[in-house]
């Protein structure tokens, strides 16, 4: 729209009028605006300070990266990267179920057990190891056993000090081959059982052990220890020594300590030859009577193990001797001895491993004697899961269980 001259004149007059009238109401308006502006300014200041504070509290990406770098540096300084944790707790162990059919006697699922192993390690310095044995017995109850519980201090590369309850370092089978997923035969060799055998099973005490290089490519290992040693079991009639109680107890009636050890020698890798010996004094403790005078106890052993490709050959000889004592209720001592040899061969490219074992245990009591030829086959589902089927031809005193042959079936796993 275009303004004509009349309209323009009216507009100019109005503008002039408005300009002249302003002072009448402008003061109040300006004051109101001023306070509003002041208010806004205050709010702005407050907002700004809140923002500043927020900026200080929140980390930037750069800050986060800096912290990350510090952490990874600290980790590296903490020891070769392997030692992210100073303390490690670990669970291992094994379980087994077995079925036995003894000729002329009953057959049963006579064996079920679970052995958890607990480890606690502190840096590269300390290792506690504890193995429990939980077995089911004939009455359907659970039996608990403490196989071992000991502390090991890695003093240096060649020496470890240990103390507590440990598997006997005498011989080889007990310490190194007894777990069901390792033993290639479903049963233990004759004379290697926990009760009434010819070998020390465990002890409570302390000692040192380690490995040392020995010339070019050869190696040796050693164990030397002091323990409470074995005790004696009297026969029912109380006039004979029935057996040597070979699992470590917290006391020994004779109050003597056993000193023993084993030396292992590896002329080439995977061939180990070992010699062991221990000596102590033992005493008969008849029920309700004072402990008798002490008498000699000694055990000597020799072992070998050789692994070559799929072939695993091993054997062990062990002899425990208790001295005579004229003044005792059981004057005669005696010799409990055993030996076994075993060959196993893992058929290449298969999961099958046939096993052949021969063993002979002799004791002062004819009814304990056992000569055994065992033949078996293992099927390895995994390197630590095995099914075993075996036949034992047993030759003992006629009429005793030791004289009856057995068929054995066992399933075992380790983890």
């Amino acid at each position, binding site marked *: 729209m275009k303004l004509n001259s009349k309209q323009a004149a009216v507009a100019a007059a109005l503008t002039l009028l408005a300009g002249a009238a302003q002072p009448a109401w402008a003061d109040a308006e300006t004051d109101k605006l001023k306070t509003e502006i002041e208010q806004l300014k205050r709010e702005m200041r407050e907002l700004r300070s809140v923002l500043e504070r927020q900026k200080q509290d929140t980390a930037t990406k750069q800050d986060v990266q800096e912290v990350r770098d510090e952490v990874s540096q600290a980790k590296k300084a903490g020891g070769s990267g*392997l030692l992210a944790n100073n303390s490690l707790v*670990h669970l*291992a162990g094994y379980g087994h179920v077995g079925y036995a059919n003894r000729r002329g006697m009953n057959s049963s699922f006579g064996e079920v057990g679970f052995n958890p192993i607990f480890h606690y390690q502190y840096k590269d310095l300390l290792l506690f190891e504890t193995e429990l044995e939980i077995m089911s017995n004939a009455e359907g109850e659970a039996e608990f056993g403490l196989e071992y519980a000991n502390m*090991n201090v890695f003093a240096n590369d060649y020496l470890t000090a240990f103390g507590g309850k440990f598997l006997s370092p005498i011989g080889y089978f007990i310490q190194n081959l007894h777990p069901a997923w390792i033993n290639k035969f479903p049963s233990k060799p004759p004379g290697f059982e926990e009760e009434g055998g010819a070998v020390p099973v465990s002890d409570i005490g302390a000692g040192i052990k380690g*490995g040392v290089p020995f010339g070019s490519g050869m190696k040796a*290992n050693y164990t030397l220890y002091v323990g409470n040693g074995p005790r004696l079991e009297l026969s029912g009639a109380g006039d004979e020594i029935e057996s040597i109680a070979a699992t470590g107890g917290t006391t020994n009636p004779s109050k003597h300590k056993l000193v023993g050890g084993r030396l*292992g020698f590896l002329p080439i890798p995977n061939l180990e030859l070992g010699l062991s010996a221990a000596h102590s004094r033992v005493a008969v403790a008849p029920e309700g009577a004072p402990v008798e005078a002490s008498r000699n106890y000694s055990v000597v052993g020799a072992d070998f193990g050789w692994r070559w490709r799929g072939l695993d050959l091993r054997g062990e000889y062990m002899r425990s001797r208790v001295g005579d004592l004229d003044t005792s209720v059981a004057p005669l001592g005696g010799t409990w001895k055993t030996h076994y040899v075993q060959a196993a061969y893992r058929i290449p490219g298969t999961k099958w491993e046939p096993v052949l074992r021969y063993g002979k245990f002799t004791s002062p009591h004819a009814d304990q004697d056992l000569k055994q030829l065992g033949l078996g086959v293992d099927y390895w589902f995994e390197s630590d899961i095995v099914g075993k089927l075996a036949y034992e031809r047993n030759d003992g005193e006629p009429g005793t269980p030791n004289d009856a042959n057995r068929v054995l079936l066992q399933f075992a796993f380790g983890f």
Partner: protein
Amino acid sequence: MKTLHIILASATTLLLAWSSFAPAQQPADPQAFARGAKAWADNCARCHNMRDPKDFRDDQWKVIVSHMRLRAGLTGQEARDILAFLQGSN
């Protein structure tokens, strides 16, 4: 004079014993893996089947190798090498 000698000697012995106690902080050893592979082959199938390195995590192998150092009579160096091999192959 004699007592001083004795004191000095025992202090040195204690110190030496202590220093051998503290696990040495080796710098990463590039040969450890190769030595470990051989030590593993030479030692770890003597008593039971060879276990696959993949069967366990690094922290599990750490404890297992300490456990096996006791069983197999390994030196500290062999144990560290075998651990380096197992942790590098799992």
